[in-house]
């Protein structure tokens, strides 16, 4: 019933779209076992759809045709048609998939298996496991270089960013960072890799060529306990000039100058902010706020929070359709 309504709504949207085409925003609700879909222009909820047990990581293919969800407690990745939100197939993921990253070409998918200290590589076309790569304890963050040659995994208890050759699946470098690295993000220029450390409270800026830490960004917010500042999700504008970092229970998103790597602003969002996603035109940045069960919408040009939208239970990840 829900799916049918969604198709209808979506058809209407397509039929009467305004010049600035709206994109669908997909939010995984960890405790709700569903995904809330928003419209990126009206900022209204289009619908909510069941997606399996404990959905966390969520991403979409570059052509916008396949939506991937880590169903952590089902031990697999579920794949949905983003238009209908009907499940098309599943991908083997290894146990407890938490977060993943797609190769820029859309294939393969690199998945962190939190319970098994592995990164699983899955072919999105053949649905076969290509490799299992042993990494540190509690792998979570997954990043990929813009040229697709290097895959990054962060291990939360080992406290390293592992550099993996995407063709040979071999680890060729390990960089020790602060406690509980959660997320790894290259800038589009491929000149910097940002790794957030949740318990350490810092973001390490790593030079991808020689795998050394160029700078450690730390955060200070008046009136917020230092222990509450726990960096997790990172997103960077295409020009590499603005870096946004979700600060967890500090309920803020930090705005960092991507050239100097200095913090320029803190934006107040909902409670326990973890993951972020831009609209393709970078007009808006969406944040998932796990404790207030909502999504904050940031106007990127103005660096202002313009709206918060209630979603499901414990929103975890977010992705915006490319088209």
């Amino acid at each position, binding site marked *: 019933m829900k799916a049918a309504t969604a198709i209808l709504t979506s058809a209407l949207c397509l039929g009467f779209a305004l010049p600035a085409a709206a994109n669908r925003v997909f939010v995984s609700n960890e405790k709700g076992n569903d995904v809330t879909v928003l419209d990126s222009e009206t900022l209204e909820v289009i619908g909510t759809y069941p997606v399996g047990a404990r959905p966390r990581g969520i991403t979409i293919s570059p052509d916008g045709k396949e939506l991937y969800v880590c169903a952590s407690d089902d031990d697999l990745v579920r794949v949905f048609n983003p238009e209908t939100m009907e499940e098309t197939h599943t991908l083997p993921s290894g146990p*407890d998939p938490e977060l993943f990253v797609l190769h820029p070409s859309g294939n393969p998918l690199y998945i962190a298996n*939190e*319970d098994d*200290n592995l990164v699983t590589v899955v072919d999105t076309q053949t649905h*076969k*496991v*290509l*490799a*299992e*790569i*042993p990494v*540190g*304890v*509690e792998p979570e963050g997954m990043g990929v270089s813009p040229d697709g040659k290097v895959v990054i995994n962060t*291990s*939360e*208890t*080992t*406290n*390293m960013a*592992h*550099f993996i050759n995407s063709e040979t*699946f*071999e*680890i*060729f*470098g*390990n*960089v*020790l960072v602060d*406690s*509980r690295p959660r997320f790894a993000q290259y800038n589009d220029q491929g000149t910097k890799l940002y790794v957030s450390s949740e*318990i*350490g*409270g810092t973001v390490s800026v790593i030079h991808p060529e*020689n*795998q*050394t830490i160029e700078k450690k960004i730390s955060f200070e917010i008046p009136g917020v*306990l230092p*222990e509450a500042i*726990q960096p997790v999700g990172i997103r960077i504008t295409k020009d590499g000039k603005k870096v946004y970092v979700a600060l967890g*229970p500090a309920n803020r998103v930090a705005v960092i100058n991507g050239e100097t790597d200095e913090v320029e602003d803190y934006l107040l969002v909902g409670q326990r902010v973890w993951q972020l996603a831009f609209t393709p035109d970078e007009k808006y940045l969406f944040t998932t706020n796990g404790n207030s069960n909502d999504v904050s919408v940031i106007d990127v040009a103005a660096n202002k929070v313009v709206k918060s939208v209630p979603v499901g239970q414990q929103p975890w990840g977010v992705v915006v359709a490319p088209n």
Partner: protein
Amino acid sequence: MTGRIIILLAGLAAAGPVLAQQAAQKPVETVRAAVLRVDVPHLPPISRLDTPPGDLGFAGARLAILDNDTTGRFMGQDFEALEVTATPETAAAEMEKLLAEGVPFIVTLADDATTLALADQAGDKALVLNARARGDALRGKDCRANVIHAAPSQAMLTDALAQFLMWKKWPNWFLVAGSHPEDIALADAYRRAATKFGAKIVEERTYEDTGGSRRSDSGHVQVQQQMPVFTQRAAEHDVLIAADENGVFAEWLPYETWDARPVAGSAGLVPRSWAPSLEAWGATQFQNRFEKLATRPMREEDYQTWIALRMIGESATRTQSTDPATLKQFMLSDKFEVAGFKGQKLTIRDWDHQLRQPILLATPTVTASVSPQDQYLHQSSALDTLGIDRPETECQF
């Protein structure tokens, strides 16, 4: 499952720069540790659910070694922990063997008196990591420079509960303490916590341990008569606090009190270093990994042993060294921090070598709250609102 490629790290270490290269150049170095558990003969606990498992503490050690070794593969480091059980009578002899073998790190699971004796016996030959004893004297007048306390102190636990009860606006406490020395010390800690946070102990009673059957078929029949009578005509109170370190009576108090009042302390809402119900801060994954390994929920002794050995592992990773003196020095420096699935970094107090840590307030099935409560502020670390702070310490190394 065909066609899978399992990449073995050993084969590729040579390919990479930085850490991987170092790992390839130097031979694997081992960090040796031991877990010495001193079991005191005990009557069975009130509840059969609380029967101590045979691998108590050791299961936590095994997970810590797995975690340390996984990281160690990238560093050229290997970790091991011998598992030794003893009685209070054989503890010294077992300690002697470990010292003779040159084991530099010894995690102890023992009562206060035995822990102190073992620490003195170890002297400068080994660093003792206390994973069970909670007495404040061990961190105060009896403190030793060669001991680090991974287990929280009684003062930390009682302060954690006191903060929550004050937040609840339940300041009037009826304190029921057991008759054992540890119970008396725990009652002292509650009195101190009451003074510190502005609560009032309106009445105190002692529950004498007269021995006898704790878990007979008729146990509950007796209890249903005894507990209401024991708690009858207490001064008007908001909450009953039980101080029962040996599990003699506290578990019988909830629902059996004369007045309809909640029970906290050693039963009901219990301040703890760990609870198997905790899910926040990545704890779910940690609980899963432990339960897969031990096929049972994690207990406080397992957590405290795990964190003690992780402290050693973390120091070896950060210093890229396996030299015991280097590791000890790093652990006691202001650079040391370790993640323990409690939402913030854990560090060591330099005045008494106590590991700072949030304290969970748990019922048997859920984690109801975690202290420090947000409303209690501190000039250096909110965690120092729990336990004995720098200005009040009696410890002199």
